[in-house]
């Protein structure tokens, strides 16, 4: 039924797909900004999405963060004791949690949970004409569905990261207390003594980019998903992969920039 296209591929099939995906993302983000800044604003829907994204991911993020904090300390404790640096456990755990583990784990978990959720939801809405129905009802689906979700992820991932950091520190404290007897006050004193603004601010800032990436990728892949349930499933899958890789690349870039600015 479809006639044969004149040019089959520019480079190769997979490379073409890759560049096409990048172009798609770029175009989509341009649209998001263009549509997003024009009134009317969908505040109610933003709140609704914040609830869906923030509160419904809290337990998952919290449990993971706690366990990772706990495991981090339990794993590194023997080595640090061996080097006679047992008293550096709180400082070590706080810096690794605040700088890296908290933001990254939150972002990766959310890329899995929220990214795939968004793209499956938008994909199925697209396939079942719900997006068309919205447009017909005088609602710009780009504003109502896409901009709100991206804004919500951009705002909620940082909040979740703050929770993840604290919960993870509590996990690390629990981990220290399995073998040692450390009191809370002493522990958290050491934790905050080890931290500096240059640890907190860059790692907090990067979570906004993480959130934006997760939202953008999820929406793009969902919104542009192919017809049929297979297309929706594929979109969700690709969205998870792309947003995870995106998050890690951003993490690397931010780390590099931070170190170039002399904060590391």
């Amino acid at each position, binding site marked *: 039924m479809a006639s044969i296209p004149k040019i089959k591929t520019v480079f190769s099939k997979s490379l073409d797909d890759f560049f096409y995906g990048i172009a798609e993302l770029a175009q989509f983000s341009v649209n998001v900004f263009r549509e997003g800044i024009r009134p009317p604003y969908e505040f109610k829907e933003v709140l609704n999405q914040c609830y869906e994204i*923030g509160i419904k991911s809290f337990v998952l993020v919290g449990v993971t963060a706690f366990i990772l904090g706990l495991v981090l300390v339990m794993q590194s404790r023997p080595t640090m004791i061996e080097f*006679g640096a047992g008293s550096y456990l709180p400082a070590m755990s706080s810096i690794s949690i605040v700088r890296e583990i908290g933001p990254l784990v939150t972002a990766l978990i959310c890329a899995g949970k929220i990214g795939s959720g968004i793209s499956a939801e938008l994909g199925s809405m697209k396939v079942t004409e719900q997006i068309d129905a919205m447009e017909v009802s005088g609602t710009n689906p780009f504003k109502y569905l896409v901009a709100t979700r991206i804004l919500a992820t951009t705002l909620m991932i940082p909040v979740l990261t703050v929770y993840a950091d604290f919960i993870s520190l509590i996990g690390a404290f629990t981990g220290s207390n399995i073998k040692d007897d450390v009191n809370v006050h002493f522990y958290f004193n050491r934790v*905050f003594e080890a*931290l500096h603004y240059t640890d907190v601010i860059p790692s907090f800032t990067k979570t906004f980019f993480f959130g934006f990436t997760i939202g953008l990728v999820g929406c793009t892949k969902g919104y542009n998903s192919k017809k049929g349930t297979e297309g929706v499933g594929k979109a969700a899958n690709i969205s998870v992969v792309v947003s995870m890789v995106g998050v890690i690349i951003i993490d690397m870039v931010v780390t590099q920039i931070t170190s170039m600015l002399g904060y590391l």
Partner: protein
Amino acid sequence: MDKTLKKNILLGFFVLVGMTLFIAGIFLVGSKNEMFSKTFPISAKFTNATGLKPGSNIRYNGVKVGIVKSVNLINDTLVQVDMQIEESKRHFILSTAIAAIASDGLMGDKIVNISAGKGAGAEVRNGDLLQANNPLNTDKVLLTLSQSNENIRVITENLKTLTADINSNNGPVQLLYKDGAMAQNLKRSFGNLDAITNKVLNVSSSLQNITSQIQHGNGALGEIINDSSLSKNLSYTMGKLKETSDALNTASGQLSKTIGHANSGKGALNMLLTDTTFSATVQQSMINIKSASKGLDEDMEALKHNFLTKGYFRKQAKKERKALKDKE
């Protein structure tokens, strides 16, 4: 609508708690970094500021009072370190206070430690330049110590020859008193010994000084000492050094007596020949000196194995090897 309201209330609560945690965290970090308290500037000039960075802690007698603001070279030998001190700690710090660069724990960052100086002074003013106590160079101490040890060994050799001569009874005693040169030699050895004893005493007292500083927690080695065996080692070394110098003292005293006798010339030869106790005394002195020297050797060895000073000796050995190679 009711459901939406409930959701929004939950969301508001969620975000509020998150933000509170964040702001509380920021303030906790801030209070540890003196971001929100009033500060005033002072500075100090050091010859070496290795490891000191903006943000490094400043402690006064071990209590945190501020952070380093900047570290700048001002000429070919001096580094100026600008510090921010909490306003509330101002009245503890007098203008006579001494700043030194120290280490915060075993693997910790470098810190500036301020301690009270001698004598009374006025409260420190904004922009004051504190007197800097440049890091006590353990390398130098150890170098002196090893030289002393070498000297002692040479002297011991000399004395050994001498005693052998005395013991042999083969006329060299005569020679001893006839030959002024010999007497001169002996005298010189004695003088050398005395000087070395003083040197060792100095080293020992400077080590004692370090140890006491360490024990008072305001020395460079701060925390390590409290939980490592180095402290024990050091005090052991100290004890040994003291013994050595005591022994050297005794020996030199005895020798001095001998020479006094010899110099008095009154039946000295006779006495020397007949009095075996004198010979025995000299011998005893020799043994003492020997054992003291051996003890010193052992201490040196122990220091060599101590991980803190290992680096120094390794460097030294490398240098020697290199020198040897160059010679070849």
